[in-house]
């Protein structure tokens, strides 16, 4: 086997040559066909978790074995792949998965959200609106939203089948009685197409509204749990809430320190040992594009005492 390390530029990279000895996109054709059939079923029943024969992949569970199998079964020679981890294109997980597909499928990779045809993601949805020509693939650790409140798998299946989701509201009730608000900040349960309650994978609830009637196809893969589920384009996705405690997303009193964005999801970066910190966009591509267009944040003044408020909190940003 020839070793080939064709370095490619991360933005709009060139096509590298494919490794020999492996099938196109690593998985064999029968497996890919099985996964595609599963995906078709998942798309036909929005939000329903379809079991599939998950394969061992050359990366550990929890690193995106489910997502990578979906991507492998979908990717073609014309596709352009973007992989993000917590919004960033340059983390180990994202870089490794991109390189995996450029070596096994000769796929073009990119970090630009707009260029990509397949976006594999862990923990975020890009800030840029996705279009109908794109597919977003989520890496899911635990696909079952009812798991932590009802541990019996058989009972949970029955609840899904009969649309008995009262127990999910018990969880929200507990949050309000304990914290005065619904404290769940990520993996916030949603009702898909008025039928199935679904775990949106551990994305922040900030991203939940983006799933509603998204033009792109959304696919969710859980490798260890052997489940695939989907939200077809333009499908209604509603975050669960109470009438008197409506769903709301988190807001920050700051803007991104690098690009000055006032409406993106921010990461808190500790700057030194004295505890000064900076808030920057978690979506690196969104941030870089804004900087390239000439937007600027007030990078010089790190925020001293940061507080994340919920609901209100107007930001005055550049």
């Amino acid at each position, binding site marked *: 086997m020839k070793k080939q390390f064709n370095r490619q530029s991360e933005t709009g990279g060139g096509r590298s040559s494919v490794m020999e000895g492996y099938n196109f996109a690593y998985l064999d054709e029968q497996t890919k066909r099985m996964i595609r059939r599963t995906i078709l079923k998942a798309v036909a029943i929005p939000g329903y978790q379809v079991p599939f024969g998950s394969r061992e992949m050359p990366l550990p569970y929890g690193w995106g074995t489910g997502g990578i199998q979906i991507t492998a079964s979908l990717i073609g020679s014309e596709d352009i792949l973007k992989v993000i981890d917590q919004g960033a294109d340059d983390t180990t997980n994202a870089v490794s998965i991109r390189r995996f597909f450029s070596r096994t499928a000769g796929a073009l990779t990119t970090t630009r959200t707009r260029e990509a045809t397949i976006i594999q993601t862990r923990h975020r949805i890009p800030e840029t609106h996705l279009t109908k020509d794109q597919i977003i693939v989520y890496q899911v650790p635990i696909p079952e939203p009812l798991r932590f409140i009802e541990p019996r798998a058989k009972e949970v299946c029955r609840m899904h089948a*009969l649309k008995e989701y009262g*127990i999910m509201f*018990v969880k929200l*009730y507990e949050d*309000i*009685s304990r914290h005065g608000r619904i404290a769940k900040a990520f993996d916030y349960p949603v009702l898909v197409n008025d039928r199935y309650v679904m775990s949106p994978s551990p994305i922040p609830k900030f991203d939940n509204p983006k799933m509603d009637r998204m033009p792109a196809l959304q696919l969710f893969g859980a490798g260890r749990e052997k489940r695939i589920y989907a939200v077809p384009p333009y499908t209604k996705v509603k975050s669960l809430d109470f*009438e008197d405690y409506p769903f709301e997303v988190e807001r920050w009193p700051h803007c991104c320190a690098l690009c000055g964005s006032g409406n993106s999801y921010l990461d808190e970066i500790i700057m030194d040992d004295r505890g000064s910190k900076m808030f920057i966009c978690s979506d690196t591509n969104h941030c870089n594009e804004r900087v390239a267009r000439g937007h600027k944040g007030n990078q010089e003044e790190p925020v001293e005492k940061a507080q994340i408020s919920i609901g209100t909190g107007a930001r005055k940003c550049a």
Partner: protein
Amino acid sequence: MCIKDSDHIPLLKVKSISRYYGRRIGCRGIEFELWPGEVLGIVGESGSGKTTLLNCISGQLEPSEGAVWYASNGGVIDMCVAPEPQKRLVMRTEMGTVYQNPRDGLRMHVSAGGNIGERLMANGLRHYGQVRRKALNWLEKVEIDSERIDDTPTTFSGGMQQRLQIARNLVTGPRLIFMDEPTSGLDVSVQARLLDLLKSLVTELDLSMVMVTHDLAVTRLLAHRLIVMKGGKAVESGLTDQVLDDPQHPYTQLLVSSILQP
């Protein structure tokens, strides 16, 4: 118990229910009718098939033979062959089950308020304030301090857990309650309070109840009618006072004579 004009059909009609565990008999050929507002006691020694019978008629266990006709608000349904969604809807709106062990009937890691609110939310209530108000109201009715609403049942005493179970079941205003030895495992003074509470709730809400117990004092206090079981069969049945004061079957005579006289 008051008989109304609308009460011309029984609430529950059990037609020769049998349940076998392989070649072993759980219960065999049990028949009875339960009328609205009536409390039926099922007594017998341990292993006589009381709980099996209760599980069969409350829809938690499929009987091997027989039928259970329940006169629900939407018409009479056969609980054994009714579609699962209909059966579960009836079970969580019109019926309730209080278990011997509160761990079976409560969610131990969920607060008292959440436990009471579960059925309300399962039936579509999506207003936190209303769930909270009803939970507080029911805690008061079952004599639990309203300050304990956010505590989990693990921090409750046995008697409180049992009363919480009752509140959790009664919050949706069911018509029929199944009780599986609700007072065993409690000390005598707590038993007396719980029975007192049950008696007042049964009359106040016009509940029907099927109660399994091996404690004849409990049945004497609460039950209108009695079925005595032995070896999976009903050996005697009738009005409570009649059965207890003039037992006919040798086993019933033994049971009645075994009560300690103070």
